[in-house]
């Protein structure tokens, strides 16, 4: 920051000086006011709830009874979202920071940013009203897809090694993110075509009945797996963006050293780049977790909102955010249920705020470390 000279030069008229003083005062007052207003959120939630907690208006049993299913639902939804989002996001980040051609990368990054901006209500609508009934009808097909996609990618890698060098140059690994798309699309369609035969052969034509009788699993149409898929889709781009930043921020001299000694790019990444960037990748996952915990509309529309506590990924749940959205407009201010919901909001706030702060601290440390590593080389 640069300070203007405190001693006013003779050219400065008193009016300009006064105006400057006034404006500075206004900026200071306005800035502090805005920042306080923004920070007031935490204070408001605490003021509403803490007295009730200490005066005993909210008993321990009441809190446990009404909040634990919601907390469980929140964690379950977030967990499954991360199960889908983290591998995809980290895979994509690794690919685009190490292998992808710069031209493709400059296109793919904004595209995934757009994916992050898709409104939750649209994703929730498609997942809840289109995907969930579809998966219910094509259960085998959906499970087959989960299995076929990774196998298909590996198959593509295997076939690629057997191809002629000319063809391999046409389809380089640097552009694999693009030319694998039609291949995966074809595989997906093929596996959907074959799924009924598979179902007839393995599960006597009725996977749902088989799950029920053989494993005792009850399949709910709106379940944690669908929530995880939809929310994973929503969370994945933000994890990707942060992880990609961390990976491509590693000073290139580190990786170059490893490659000069004969390591493949994957070995370089796994042994050198990833350990250096690990805190940043961790921070990315944390921020993803924060988003998954707080996402409201997707859970509201896809999870079925039944407050059940079960481990099964094929059953629904109700999350804190969805509970607040449904119940708070009807709750009478000051009543027990109102205060419980505010408590839920406070918990959400604290959780996300702490997670984000942790991630932010980790990231700023990491940035300093990169600068040091870059200097040494």
């Amino acid at each position: 920051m640069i300070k203007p000279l405190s001693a006013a030069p003779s050219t400065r008229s008193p009016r300009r000086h006064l105006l400057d003083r006034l404006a500075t005062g206004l900026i200071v007052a306005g800035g502090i006011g805005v920042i306080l207003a923004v920070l007031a959120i935490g204070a408001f939630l605490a003021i509403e709830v803490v007295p009730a907690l200490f005066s005993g208006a909210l008993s321990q049993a009441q809190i446990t009874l009404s909040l634990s299913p919601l907390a469980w639902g929140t964690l379950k939804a977030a967990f499954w979202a991360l199960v889908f989002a983290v591998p995809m996001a980290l895979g994509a980040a690794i690919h685009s920071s190490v292998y992808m051609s710069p031209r493709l990368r400059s296109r793919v990054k904004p595209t995934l940013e757009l994916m992050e901006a898709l409104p939750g209500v649209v994703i929730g609508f498609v997942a809840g009203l289109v995907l969930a009934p579809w998966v219910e009808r094509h259960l085998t097909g959906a499970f087959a897809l989960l299995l076929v996609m990774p196998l298909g990618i590996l198959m593509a890698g295997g076939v690629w090694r057997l191809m002629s060098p000319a063809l391999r140059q046409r389809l380089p690994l640097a552009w694999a993110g693009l030319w694998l798309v039609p291949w995966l699309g074809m595989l997906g369609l093929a596996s959907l075509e074959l799924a009924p035969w598979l179902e007839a052969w393995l599960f006597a034509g009725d996977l749902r009945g088989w799950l029920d009788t053989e494993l005792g699993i009850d399949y709910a149409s709106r379940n944690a797996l669908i929530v995880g898929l939809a929310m994973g889709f929503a969370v994945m781009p933000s994890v990707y963006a942060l992880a990609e930043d961390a990976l491509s921020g590693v000073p290139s001299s580190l990786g170059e050293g490893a490659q000069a000694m004969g390591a493949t790019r994957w070995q370089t990444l796994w042994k050198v780049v990833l350990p250096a960037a690990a805190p940043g990748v961790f921070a990315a996952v944390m921020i993803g977790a924060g988003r998954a915990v707080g996402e409201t509309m997707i859970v509201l529309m896809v999870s079925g909102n039944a407050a059940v506590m079960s481990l099964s990924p094929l059953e629904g749940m109700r999350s804190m955010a969805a509970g607040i959205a449904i119940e708070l407009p009807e709750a009478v201010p000051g009543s027990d249920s109102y205060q419980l919901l505010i408590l839920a909001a406070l918990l959400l706030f604290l959780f996300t705020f702490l997670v984000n702060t942790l991630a932010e601290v980790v990231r700023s440390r990491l940035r300093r470390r990169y600068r040091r590593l870059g200097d040494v080389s």
Partner: protein
Amino acid sequence: MSLAAVTGFRTWQPRGEGPWAWLAAGSVALSLLLLAGLLTLIAVRGLGHFWPASVSLVELDDGQVFAGRAVRELPLPAADGAGGARERLYFTGNRDLDGHVWQWVAVARITASELPRELVVLERSRHGDFIGRLVEVVTAGQQGTSVGEGGRGGGDGGGTATWTTLQERLSAVDALRAERDELQQRVIPPLVRRLENDPGDRATQRRLAETNERIRGLQESMQTDAAVLESVDGRRIVLTLDEVLRSWRPNAMSLPEKLGAWGRGVGRFLSEGPRAANTAGGVWPAIFGTVLMVMLMSLLVAPFGVLAAVYLNEVAHQGRLTNWVRIAVRNLAGVPSIVYGVFGLGVFVYGIGGSIDEWFFSDELPSPTFGTGGLLWASLTLALLTLPVVIVATEEGLVRIPDHQREGALALGATRLEMLTRVVLPMAVPAMLTGMILAVARAAGEVAPLMLVGVAKLAPQVPMDGEFPFLHLERKFMHLGYHVYDTAFHGDDIQAAMPVVYATALLLVLVVVVLNLTAIFLRHYVRARHGALSRH
């Protein structure tokens, strides 16, 4: 030797990267595939809704005949192994005759399916669509004289004359309807207000009575004509023409005609209000509500966001405390939006709104004026929600401005205010714009906090009209995102609502995507420009 070395270099293969590299590449491909799939689905379904699809006349093996639009086809849950049997869903309309509008039919049972040109589809103000045949048009003057037997006389131009008459009559009715709406919306309200102020004003009273008489007259002349219609299985109904909103003969339309009808359908969707419990009609009030709310929010968030960023970056002492505040503000961008909604409900609606009601609108209590969700509280809540976005983006822009620009301005004798307004802020404009656009995009797509602070399922009055004070901040409003949620999850007939939901979702996605693309290009521009600057 050198040639061999070159060819050796050419054919030299790097060691394989192993399976993990491919899995990583695959996850890029998979996420692109998912994104493309989602966008295609929404675009195709959302735009397909307006296409005047053909109506087929279906005959079943038991002799039952019905007319309908094929919607989709599914494999039958086969009891005896995979038989490959399929069933098809038809939209048959005629809710008043049949009591239902959908019909599932096993494909195997269909003995004949054709596309007769004379089938008409009428969009009605009550009971939804009618699908069937037009028999005759009865007009007031020529009672009973049919203008041309349409029926199943068949042939190439089956009932064309009747159809033309119907179209003429309908456009006449449309003109009358437009006149009536004009009178009701533009002429009546000012008269009513003048009467409220001065109940004894004779001239106004007379004019009001005249206008009401005129409206009644228009209403009557709209109801003089009627169409006699027949469903394909021979049941007749008589429909006065003021109930018919639109009519078309999908099987007789050529491709350009269909395209034209499609365009007009899109136009109506954007400009009309919803009908039939939000499952039909357009989304104009929702568009208006979304845009108005976002604009109000921008008015609030732009000055305050920039002010806070300028304070943090240019004025405040850059110590540990400022750094902590900066991190906290940044983290607030990651706090779930529903928490902001809770804050808005507790502080704005119940706190400030409740107090305003007690002080200024106490004669209206206990029914709340500002003490319930409304436009103002929604914009304030969203402004708070998007403040961190604007602050962070503006600060990024300010940081990128090299210090020597500021030093130069100060060295030439500028005060801090002059340095800020003439040098620093103009350079940071693209960054501020980026922040604003990102904020608007986020606010446009955000639904969860609005559910707590003022969105409505159906708000017939838009929050802006010709009545003082023109902008009604306390009114509830409709929102595109909430429209998607509510129509999709709280309707009676989800099947019928789906096309509207798809179209609304498409509109919302388009708005958000366009805004984000603008932000991305702007940011690119900022980076390029300041990259060039800092090299000086």
